[in-house]
């Protein structure tokens, strides 16, 4: 393995155990059982797919992404393939309800000549569906051990160690064996030989000197294996009572537009109340303002300000966040140099709704602890705004995923997204974008081709307002009245269609069609959902944290060097002439580059007409994404595409804003 966790153990001769299986087979539950507390999450070298590994007794256990077969159709398959190739023992985790689908992978693993044991999971579901599976017969036909489990209920997990110990090579397909003989002399490793014959591009590159009509062979092998799956399933499975269950009805209803769209609306409403209202408003208000800014940031700054000259700017607001008064307290020798004034300050802010801003004369201190302090602002932003938001989003996503709803939603949305040059799967990053564009940009990895990833990223960066921004937009728009709302929504929708049409035309490459397996719908397992949420949030924070620090450092640098003012001056004619907005709004746009909601929030205190509000909000929605999502975009899509999209948002936002402004005013 590329990353070998715990170097102490790497000296001993340990075996690599790999868990392999289709998506939604309960693989991670099995892994959780084996791994216990100590799990290593890392990005697979050269890719963005994260892998988890852990120690179980003297085995190094690896979890792999869910795949339907060992091949290289996408990043996840490539990663799973690499891990499987290097594995000593493979536990093939199978959803007993879906033998027909899952055994393809199992047979492929056996054909690779790997030592395999089959974990026949979800046996409780099998009983519920009044199905009978003869696992003894299955074991006989496959030539490997088969263990029945219900990971959700913890049944049969005690046999996992036995499964690892008794793993052995199974019965290879006779046809495949014949074909393997064709390359026996050139490729020693049977697994590689098989993948070569199956046309795996990476393996073929490795053995490019071997000339064989691979196209025909790989198809023959696939069809042969398929037929063998069918023969096996026919022999081991009996009695099937189709349908009749609540969940299969629900699954059907989720697909029919007449019932599926209302179901989607109900789910979105629930999500809105959970994330949009409970988390983004109430919880974040508590964590960001009360704990983050009010308690932690304040005390850090106060500590720094003790000995260092500073000014504290106090803005007093009423309950509707309208400005009441401004007052500045100057501490020439730091707070400890003027204790009396600090008491005065404390009395002044007591029981008032205030915003405090510490200004440090020393640029170095200002850089780290000032208004855009690299330490103070990043900390509050990361842990008290983003963390609760991202956790709740990943939790919701995991719930939807484990319930089997997401593939149905993707199928339902497929037609619409095909028109945008994407396929139905793209609905997931787009919906996530309404939570956090940065997070959604990372999720575009799940899309099939580079073209789709670029289009989805561009849409996110151009048109989709994140939850922080959405909250401010909603408040401003509802104050501006129904006409403003209508113009705003129509403009944004028009632009969504316009942008996607243009992107569809100009982004090179091809988009992949939807080929999606629809698993049975079921109640998600809460424990697994929480675990999934935990690992995803952890990996997001790991990836985002350095980028946020970098972003704040750039802004901080622009701020203390005064470059930000030059930028504001450059922007000013654009805002006054093109957009016909007051010149202070230039500041709001620049602030929007740091955090999208800062930008919109800056408009709160300005005296704007209804149309000006609409123009400003449309422009700010389309305008450059926050610095964090900009950096994530560069990381994911590369510097060139990232910069093109970024520059595009500038041009686009001011052109559309300008046109709208001149139509309205």
């Amino acid at each position, binding site marked *: 393995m590329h990353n070998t966790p715990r170097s102490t153990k790497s000296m001993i001769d340990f075996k690599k155990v790999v868990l392999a299986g289709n998506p939604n087979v309960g693989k991670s539950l099995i892994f959780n059982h084996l791994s216990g507390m100590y799990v290593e999450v890392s990005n697979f070298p050269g890719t963005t797919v994260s892998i988890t590994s852990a120690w179980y007794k003297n085995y190094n256990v690896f979890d792999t992404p869910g795949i339907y077969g060992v091949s290289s159709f996408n990043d996840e398959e490539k990663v799973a393939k690499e891990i499987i190739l290097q594995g000593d023992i493979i536990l093939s985790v199978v959803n007993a309800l879906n033998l027909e*689908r899952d055994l393809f992978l199992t047979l492929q693993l056996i054909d690779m000549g790997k030592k395999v044991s089959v974990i026949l999971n979800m046996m409780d579901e099998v009983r519920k569906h009044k199905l009978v599976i003869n696992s003894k017969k299955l074991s006989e036909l496959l030539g490997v051990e088969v263990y029945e489990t219900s990971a959700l209920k913890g049944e049969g997990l005690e046999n996992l160690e036995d499964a690892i110990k008794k793993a052995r090579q199974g019965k290879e397909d006779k046809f495949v064996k014949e074909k393997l003989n064709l390359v026996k002399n050139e490729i020693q490793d049977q697994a590689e030989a098989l993948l070569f014959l199956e046309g795996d591009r990476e393996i073929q590159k490795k053995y490019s000197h071997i000339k064989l009509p691979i196209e025909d062979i790989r198809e023959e092998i696939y069809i042969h294996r398929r037929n063998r799956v069918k023969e096996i399933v026919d022999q081991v499975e009996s009695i099937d009572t189709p349908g009749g269950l609540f969940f299969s009805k629900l699954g059907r209803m989720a697909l029919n537009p007449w019932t*599926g769209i209302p179901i989607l609306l109900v789910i979105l409403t629930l999500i809105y109340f959970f994330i949009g209202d409970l988390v983004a408003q109430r919880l974040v208000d508590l964590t960001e303002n009360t704990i983050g800014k009010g308690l932690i940031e304040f005390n850090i700054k106060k500590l720094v300000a003790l000995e260092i000259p500073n000014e504290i700017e106090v803005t007093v607001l009423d309950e509707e966040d309208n400005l009441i008064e401004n007052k500045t307290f100057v501490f020439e020798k730091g707070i400890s140099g003027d204790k009396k004034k600090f008491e005065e300050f404390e009395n002044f802010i007591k029981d008032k709704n205030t915003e405090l801003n510490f200004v440090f004369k020393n640029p170095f201190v200002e850089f780290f602890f000032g208004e855009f302090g690299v330490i103070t602002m990043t900390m509050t932003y990361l842990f008290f705004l983003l963390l609760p938001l991202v956790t709740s989003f990943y939790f919701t996503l995991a719930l939807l995923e484990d319930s089997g709803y997401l593939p149905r939603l993707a199928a339902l949305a497929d037609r619409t997204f095909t028109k945008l040059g994407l396929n139905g799967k793209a609905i997931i990053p787009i919906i996530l974008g309404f939570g956090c564009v940065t997070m959604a940009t990372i999720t575009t990895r799940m899309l099939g081709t580079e073209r789709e990833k670029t289009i989805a990223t561009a849409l996110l960066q151009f048109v989709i307002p994140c939850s922080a921004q959405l909250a401010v937009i909603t408040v401003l728009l509802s104050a501006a009245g129904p006409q403003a709302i209508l113009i705003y929504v129509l403009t944004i929708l028009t632009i969504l269609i316009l942008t996607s049409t243009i992107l569809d035309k100009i982004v090179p490459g091809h988009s992949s069609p939807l080929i999606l397996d629809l698993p049975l719908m079921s109640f998600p397992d809460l424990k697994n959902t929480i675990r999934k949420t935990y690992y995803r949030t952890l990996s997001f924070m790991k990836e985002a944290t350095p980028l946020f620090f970098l972003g704040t450092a750039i802004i901080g640098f622009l701020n203390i060097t005064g470059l930000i003012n030059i930028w504001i001056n450059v922007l000013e004619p654009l805002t006054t002439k093109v957009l016909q907005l007051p010149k202070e709004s230039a500041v709001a746009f620049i602030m929007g580059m740091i955090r999208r909601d800062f930008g919109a929030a800056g408009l709160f205190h300005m005296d704007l007409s209804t149309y000006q509000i609409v123009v400003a909000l449309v422009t700010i929605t389309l305008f450059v994404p926050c610095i964090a999502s900009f950096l994530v975009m560069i990381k994911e899509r590369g510097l060139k595409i990232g910069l093109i999209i970024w520059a595009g948002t500038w041009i686009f936002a001011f052109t559309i804003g300008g046109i709208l402004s001149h139509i309205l005013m």
Partner: protein
Amino acid sequence: MNLKERMEMKTTLDKVTKGQKFIIDQLPDDDYKLQLIRFGIAEGEKVTCLDKILGGTIILKKNRLEIALGSELAKRIKVTMLN
């Protein structure tokens, strides 16, 4: 059965309707072919159209397996209808 009737039964997957059974005659000749075969949607297989979503996305059923297929891909799959 005359030739005309026979011709009418031959069509592409996007033309099938809900509940119809059919046999897969020909899959498109690219990577998607293998992905379909993995799901058991291979040439010569008997498959049912479980549902057709407004806009053309096809939901196929083969035994207990349900697969959603985009309409563009469905257009490239040749089938023979059975009922």
